[in-house]
């Protein structure tokens, strides 16, 4: 049962978290990941840390004590049942005890149910005994309502998961019968000590030899265990009439006690021990790593607790843009110029521009930029059209280039070469151009041509 509490507590926390929301686990997670890196111990340890917050300790205790109480009641019931069965089998001492009859009264039901249990164990869907199921049913009535309900469900789930349900029920069933048979044995011992019984067997048509063999067969096993057994002569003498002789009485009393012990109590005790062994083995084996969705999600939360997001310092200042500077109108000549940044698109459109417009080579690196600046310096145009691709992200390099161009022209506008939906960055361009004081970009080519024709 080493891992019963761990598994039970985990299951309870799991039910809680998967049926409502995540518990406040930040601290617990951090502690867990520092202690171990194995998944199952991590999950168990986390549950252990979170359980008190759920009141889980109390509810688990409630379930345990309810189970114990019900087992106790069942046990008391069994002892009373056994005592009365034992006494009833012997009857009042006025009449001689029919030994076979008495033995059947005590052993028939327990033996039959034991055989049934053994047979059912061999079947694939063994349940573990009717009595155990009855006990589970009673426990269900008590526990399936109120605060303990979830803890009880968790307990059942763990039992089911560990394939322990069958053995739990078996242990309860066998314990019940052990108590009953012990009660019966006690009744026999007390009765034989305090009352005077005589013994016999009876038959109408069977031969005496049958009883001799039967009684001897039954006593083989008790004899091994050291019980006194009646001899063949004694058995023959007790046929149909009781012999009130002290040695014979004692032999029969020993025979009865031995039979109940060896054929009733002992097999049950063995069955109980076997079941208890299998039960503890169910819980003692370490389960494989849980791999269900819940376990993986918890794992992820634990991993997150490990990750401290670190940064190299405060975020950099947003870019502060200087306003574009223009050439004073006096220094401008009445010429027009156009230049494209990082696109060859303008070359293809040269035809649509009048000859008066100087089309500069596209700028895309330091050399071409230097060349363009030199040319602009000598042209000193009144209008400069700067063509950019709306697909391009307006980065610092492009804006710096634009800011380097404007001091050589009287005025400048940006024409945005249209781009299709997904990568259209017109809005970003509008914002950035606004920031450097260049006004709205031109978005269609005819209006760009129109702007180039303006005079003032």
């Amino acid at each position, binding site marked *: 049962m080493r891992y019963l509490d761990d598994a039970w507590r985990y299951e309870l926390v799991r039910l809680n978290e998967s049926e409502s929301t995540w518990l406040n686990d930040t601290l617990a997670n951090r502690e867990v990941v520092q202690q171990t890196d194995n998944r199952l111990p991590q999950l168990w340890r986390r549950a252990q840390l979170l359980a008190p917050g759920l009141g889980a300790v109390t509810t688990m205790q409630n379930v345990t004590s309810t189970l114990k109480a019900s087992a106790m009641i069942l046990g008391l019931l069994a002892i009373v049942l056994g005592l009365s069965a034992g006494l009833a089998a012997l009857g009042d001492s006025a009449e001689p005890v029919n030994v076979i009859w008495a033995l059947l009264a005590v052993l028939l039901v327990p033996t039959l149910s034991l055989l049934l249990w053994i047979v059912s164990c061999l079947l694939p*869907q063994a349940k573990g005994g009717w009595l155990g199921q009855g006990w589970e049913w009673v426990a269900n009535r008590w526990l399936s309502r109120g605060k303990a309900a979830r803890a009880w469900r968790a307990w059942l789930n763990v039992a089911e998961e560990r394939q322990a349900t069958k053995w739990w029920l078996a242990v309860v069933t066998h314990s019940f019968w052990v108590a009953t048979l012990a009660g019966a044995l006690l009744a026999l011992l007390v009765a034989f000590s305090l009352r005077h019984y005589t013994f016999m067997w009876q038959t109408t048509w069977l031969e005496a030899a049958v009883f001799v063999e039967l009684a001897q067969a039954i006593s083989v096993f008790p004899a091994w265990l050291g019980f006194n057994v009646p001899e063949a002569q004694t058995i023959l003498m007790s046929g149909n009439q009781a012999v009130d002789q002290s040695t014979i009485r004692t032999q029969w009393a020993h025979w009865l006690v031995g039979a109940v012990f060896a054929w009733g109590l002992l097999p049950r005790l063995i069955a109980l021990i076997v079941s208890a062994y299998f039960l503890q083995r169910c819980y003692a084996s370490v389960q494989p790593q849980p791999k269900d969705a819940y376990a993986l999600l918890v794992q992820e939360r634990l991993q997150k607790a490990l990750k401290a997001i*670190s940064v190299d310092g405060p975020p950099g200042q947003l870019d502060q843009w200087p306003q574009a500077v223009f050439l004073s109108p006096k220094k401008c000549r009445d010429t027009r110029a156009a230049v494209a940044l990082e696109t060859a698109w303008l070359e293809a459109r040269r035809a649509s521009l009048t000859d008066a417009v100087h089309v500069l080579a596209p700028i*895309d*690196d330091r050399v071409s930029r230097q060349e363009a600046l030199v040319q602009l310096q000598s042209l000193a145009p009144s209008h400069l059209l700067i063509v950019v691709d709306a697909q391009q992200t307006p980065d610092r*390099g492009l804006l710096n280039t634009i800011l380097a161009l404007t001091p050589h022209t009287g005025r400048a506008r940006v024409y945005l070469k249209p781009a299709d939906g997904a990568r259209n*960055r017109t809005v970003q361009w509008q914002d950035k151009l606004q920031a450097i004081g260049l006004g709205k970009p031109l978005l269609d080519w005819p209006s760009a041509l129109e702007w180039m024709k303006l005079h003032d």
Partner: protein
Amino acid sequence: MTEADAIRIAIVGHTNTGKTSLLRTLTRDRTFGKVADSAGTTRHVQAASVTLENRDALIWFDTPGLEDSIALYDWAAQLTAPGQRLDGPDRIVQFLQDPQASQRFEQEHRVLAQIIQSDAVLYVVDVRDAVLPKHRDELHLLQWCAKPVLPVLNFTASEQAHAQPWIETFARQGIHIYVAFDSVSPPSDGEQLLFDTLAQVLAQARPTLQALSQQAAKAKSERRAAALERIAQLCVRVAAMTVTVANDPQTVMAAQQEQQARVRHLERRCVTDLLALYAFAPDDYTASELPVTDGRWQTDLFSKEAITEAGLSVGKGAAVGAVAGVAIDVFSAGLTLGTGTLLGAAAGSIWQGVDRWGSGIKAKLLGQEAFRVGDDVLQVLAARQLRLIQALERRGHAASNRVNTQDKSGEVGEPFDQKAFLRIMAVARLHPSWSDSTSTTRTQQTAVLALHQCLAASPLLAN
């Protein structure tokens, strides 16, 4: 292994090429950093660690974008030192030590400082962009840092992707190993691919990178197994659902509606769980972005369209689309006239998706009817969840667009073995108690396991 031993990888690139998006996908964290279609969204270096056995084994450093590499390259190229020939790293060190340059190129300074402290560089490019001189200058600067550079081709899944010019540019710089990794729809084994390729350029870190690759593969298969188990639980639970009510039209109608509501609720829970499992959350998306809103699919489970959407071909069975109405009508012939008319009318307008079940003798004697969820609805339910897994496995954590579950390009006939599926569902129907969320018997678990295996064989999930 302490943090000091961790492999440090700087993720760099021109501004707005999706560096932070790449990291979101790599760390499966939708909330990492800031993402926007604009220059300079990331303004500091941000670290994200990958753990191996609880220790940081690798740290990704997301850096601000390079914006003015032309000017920076010029600045560094003009550096001279008396009586000394400057090589690349010398120039970078001089740049990093120059306070004026550091002010002028504040963002670039952070990036290069990070590269110098890193073991390798992932150079992210947007392959929809043309290769420009500024990009070549960026590559020159990276080469000067003297660190292994692994180019990552982002947005390769786009129609406008032109990877070849980029590959040629890298080759000119002597870089022949690269990774195509679309951060929006990454390859399903993307993480492994990246670790494996990194192991090629970072020989000394190979064992760790191989371990990370194996870890990623394991995590991926565990995730899928958990998701399939969750779907199997859902199907078994819904199939087991049986409602027995008195045989009068109004009660029957109300019971059916209640049953439908319960199924929808269970599906919503499952969708939320699957999203969580794949580190997505429904509330991060607006209605148009995912076919699921608030954990609910836009097409109602009990509508005829759901079948088409799920790509199912429910052949002869009792209920495909319009046939469903007829089926219910035939059934209702055995009912009282009132119920029959009502069901017939209902079938005309909405598809019930709930079958009248050949109920037990007891129910018959008591004048009761038993209802359960139809085969077709169960199949739609399973197919939709499978498609969700498929979509989520191929979805990067940088994605903000709508998942296209209607994409029939990978259409593969039946989404799963329908015969085997229905066989298991038939078993589940024999156990009404399984519809209870508290039920976890062995036989139920066996059914869930069998269904899990049936769904795992789905061609939808074949890589």
